[in-house]
């Protein structure tokens, strides 16, 4: 008898394990796959192209982790942190640990939900592998950055910070939004919109940046995690295709989710834009270049042309995203600079070489609109002060970012949008966020908006020091980089005369 092909063997070892229940109603076993309105007629059409089984999963994952932990151990033993390009670089990694690592963990928990509740063995197995992959990502990130925590500020209390600190409610609410959605919306949100459309924007340029700034462990965990991510992206694309092929009634539902989750994911990547253009002392690629390559060329250029076959059009408001690529990173980082007294990372005015790079990379916008702000900030610093926004910002009800984004087509005017629901006013940063709210106001009125919570007295007390204490922010974590603990330690650890 002929040997089983990889495909037959995979089917025998995964979906063929399912059986039809006789003693209980299968709707009770899988209660969550109908309320969203998605219609599935034939799960056998589901294709998992990776066809990975448990034995090969363990074999390759163990090998990946052996390689990674060998790098981590040798970096720690050789005091590798001293060979970073500059301590300032680590601000990006603080934001990463506080903002991204908890999302990996959340993904772990909720892919477990899919691994239990999708009513077919094929996609459940893909979700099962992804669930423990995501745990791997959270843990390898923690272990990589744990070494920096021993020598630098801002890394020490990241789980508490993720639950409490204002700028971290941006990624947290994003993922809470996905987890609290039904299973097919979660797949569309995370596997497709976040991982397939945008994850490359987060990881690839960023990990190259880590490598370029002397952070070998981060580069290693990043690339190692990305190799799992390729499987996850495949799950995302396959899910979308499958849903669209199963029933024409699924198309408008999926389109609505793509519209919503493109914008929701894109807004989260605004933090990445600020990190790429300003927090990496040595630049690899600008936000604009990365956006053009990984989003405009790849996703708009080919993916959405392919999806047009199913009647799917590009996400709503994608034009607004493309239009603001010249502005996004500058507006975001200026905001982080303005509020870094209340952050668990430090910021500083870009040095002259960086200003020059920004000017050349963003010829349309930087010198005209953003360089003047940095010049003012530098003047204020020279006068012995430091520019901070001495108050709390108005937040967008949906993305929870301070309302810093400007009107489409007018980069000098802040965009203000509003909706009324049950007699209460709600504010939004953009048409994208407003339309998300207007479709599901019952969901978004529950948002735990950090500024409003502070004013309700739920965040440790009314004064800034009380709130910072409640956030777990310690002296040296926040405010200006130059003269900070990290900066002074770094200088004392290195021989200044050799500069």
């Amino acid at each position: 008898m002929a040997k089983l092909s990889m495909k037959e063997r995979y089917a025998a070892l995964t979906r063929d394990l399912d059986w039809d229940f006789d003693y209980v109603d299968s709707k009770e076993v899988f209660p969550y796959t109908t309320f969203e309105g998605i219609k599935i007629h034939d799960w056998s059409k589901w294709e998992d192209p990776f066809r990975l089984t448990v034995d090969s999963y363990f074999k390759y994952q163990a090998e990946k982790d052996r390689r990674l932990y060998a790098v981590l151990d040798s970096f720690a033993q050789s005091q590798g942190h001293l060979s970073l390009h500059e301590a300032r670089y680590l601000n990006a990694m603080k934001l990463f640990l506080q903002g991204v690592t908890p999302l990996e963990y959340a993904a772990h928990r909720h892919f477990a939900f899919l691994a239990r509740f999708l009513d077919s063995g094929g996609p459940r197995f893909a979700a099962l592998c992804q669930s423990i992959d995501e745990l791997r990502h959270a843990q390898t990130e923690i272990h990589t950055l744990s070494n920096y925590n021993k020598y630098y500020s801002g890394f020490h209390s990241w789980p508490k910070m993720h639950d409490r600190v204002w700028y971290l409610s941006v990624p947290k609410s994003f993922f809470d939004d996905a987890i609290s959605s039904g299973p097919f919306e979660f797949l569309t949100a995370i596997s497709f919109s976040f991982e397939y459309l945008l994850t490359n924007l987060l990881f690839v340029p960023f990990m190259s940046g880590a490598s370029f700034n002397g952070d070998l462990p981060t580069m290693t965990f990043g690339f190692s995690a990305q190799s799992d991510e390729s499987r996850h992206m495949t799950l995302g694309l396959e899910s979308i295709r499958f849903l669209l092929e199963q029933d024409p009634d699924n198309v408008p539902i999926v389109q609505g989710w793509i519209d919503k989750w493109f914008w929701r994911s894109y807004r989260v990547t605004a933090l990445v834009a600020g990190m790429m253009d300003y927090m990496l002392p040595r630049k690899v690629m600008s936000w604009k270049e990365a956006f053009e390559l990984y989003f405009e060329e790849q996703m708009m250029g080919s993916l959405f042309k392919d999806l047009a076959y199913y009647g799917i059009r590009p996400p709503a408001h994608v034009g607004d995203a493309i239009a603001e690529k010249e502005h996004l990173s500058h507006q975001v980082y200026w905001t982080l600079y303005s509020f870094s007294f209340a952050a668990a990372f430090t910021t500083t005015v870009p040095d002259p070489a960086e200003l020059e790079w920004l000017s050349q990379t963003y010829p349309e916008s930087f010198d005209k609109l953003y360089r003047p702000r940095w010049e003012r900030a530098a003047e204020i610093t020279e006068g012995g002060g430091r520019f901070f926004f001495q108050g709390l910002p108005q937040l967008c009800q949906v993305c929870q970012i301070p309302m810093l984004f400007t009107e489409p087509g007018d980069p000098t005017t802040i965009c203000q949008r509003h909706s009324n629901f049950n007699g209460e006013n709600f504010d939004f940063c953009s048409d994208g966020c407003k339309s998300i709210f207007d479709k599901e106001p019952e969901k978004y009125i529950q948002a735990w908006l950090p500024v409003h919570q502070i004013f309700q007295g739920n965040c440790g007390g009314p004064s800034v020091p009380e709130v910072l204490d409640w956030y777990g922010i310690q002296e040296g974590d926040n405010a200006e980089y130059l003269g900070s603990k990290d900066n002074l330690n770094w200088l004392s650890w290195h021989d200044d005369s050799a500069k």
Partner: protein
Amino acid sequence: MPVKAISNYSFESRSRAELYGDDQLVNVWWVNAPMMCAAACFRAPREMAWSDFLAAMVYPWASSDPGFEASRASSWQVDGVGFSPDPSATLASLGVRHKSLVSFKS
């Protein structure tokens, strides 16, 4: 279009007016100030006088920018409608409600 949930899905707003007692949230936007990345949000008594609101909250915040001059603040609007506030009038009597947007230029 309401949210699609598996069962009744109805929760209160976590920013609703009653959570602030006699106070309310007021957003203040300095429209033509590139140094100020966003509008600010304050908690202020509904019965606070306009002049006290400016002196205690708006001006100290706007002074984050050392170039701010209170005397040049003009073109006041509340929720997009121009108004010329009487300094002694209360926020409530001026039509400033919970989460209203007060704006000015300078």
